[in-house]
């Protein structure tokens, strides 16, 4: 039984509200990564994201009696995280030029991919090389905010379209469009750089060092 199980969550919440406060640790633990990375995507700073993540967890605890169970628990938690992040951004707004409102979906135009004539699969083991992870992080962190958020939740936290839409307060259609553009931008930027990480030869063990 895991905490992503709605029955476990409901039971846990009942017991926490009934006084078994320490159970809150187990309830929030499976959401930690998603909370942090959503806030990191919004705030773009590790220290701020960590501080906001702690505030989010405390707000979830203090407002636990308001959770109605009509959304998934994690989705509700991520809405609180998003509000926490947006609140902080608004406070910083006079110090920042790029406001969230400026990032709309009207950037249309063609997303021409990097044109390749062949692609050799880069296996996950290649991530043992630190530079590969660094390249991926840099490309994702460099995406416009509205795309970065969607990639973080859909492709990194592997949330479904519906949950992502609720957590970000956008439509499911917008999630799909933004994810498509984000992936196209990542392919264009990364494909030429990543080619060098493909195995040099196809051996019995696939990945040649």
């Amino acid at each position: 039984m895991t905490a992503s199980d709605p029955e476990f969550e409901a039971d846990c919440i009942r017991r926490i509200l009934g006084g078994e406060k320490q159970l809150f640790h187990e309830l929030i633990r499976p959401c930690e990564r998603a909370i942090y990375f959503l806030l990191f995507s919004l705030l773009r700073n590790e220290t701020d994201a960590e501080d906001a993540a702690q505030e989010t967890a405390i707000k979830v605890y203090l407002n636990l009696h308001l959770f109605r169970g009509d959304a998934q628990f994690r989705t509700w938690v991520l809405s609180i995280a998003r509000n926490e992040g947006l609140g902080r951004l608004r406070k910083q707004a006079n110090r920042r030029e790029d406001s969230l409102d400026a990032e709309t979906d009207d950037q249309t135009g063609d997303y021409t991919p990097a044109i390749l004539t062949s692609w050799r699969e880069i296996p996950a083991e290649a991530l043992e090389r630190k530079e590969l992870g660094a390249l991926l992080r840099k490309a994702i962190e460099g995406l416009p905010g509205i795309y970065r958020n969607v990639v973080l939740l859909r492709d990194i936290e592997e949330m479904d379209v519906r949950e992502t839409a609720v957590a970000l307060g956008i439509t499911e259609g917008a999630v799909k469009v933004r994810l498509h553009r984000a992936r196209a931008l990542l392919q264009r930027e990364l494909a030429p750089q990543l080619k060098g990480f493909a195995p040099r030869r196809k051996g019995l063990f696939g990945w040649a060092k």
Partner: protein
Amino acid sequence: MRIDCKHVWKHISAYIDGDVDAALRAEIDRHLETCEICSAVLDSTRNIVVLTADDRVFELPAGFSERLHARLDRELDLPKS
């Protein structure tokens, strides 16, 4: 009617997610059979999606969880107002 490369690119993300209808999927598959460029674009995009999902790419800062739960412990000790 044979769909062109741009049409395929437009649907790559949905195709990867299995979010295209059967007719469109069949058209794209037919195009991919003979278009090495679109095959490579699809393979590279899918490869990038798979790699970014790996937990090693985005890791929580060291000690994040310990600090979070220590802070929660302090909060849980407070009487609820």
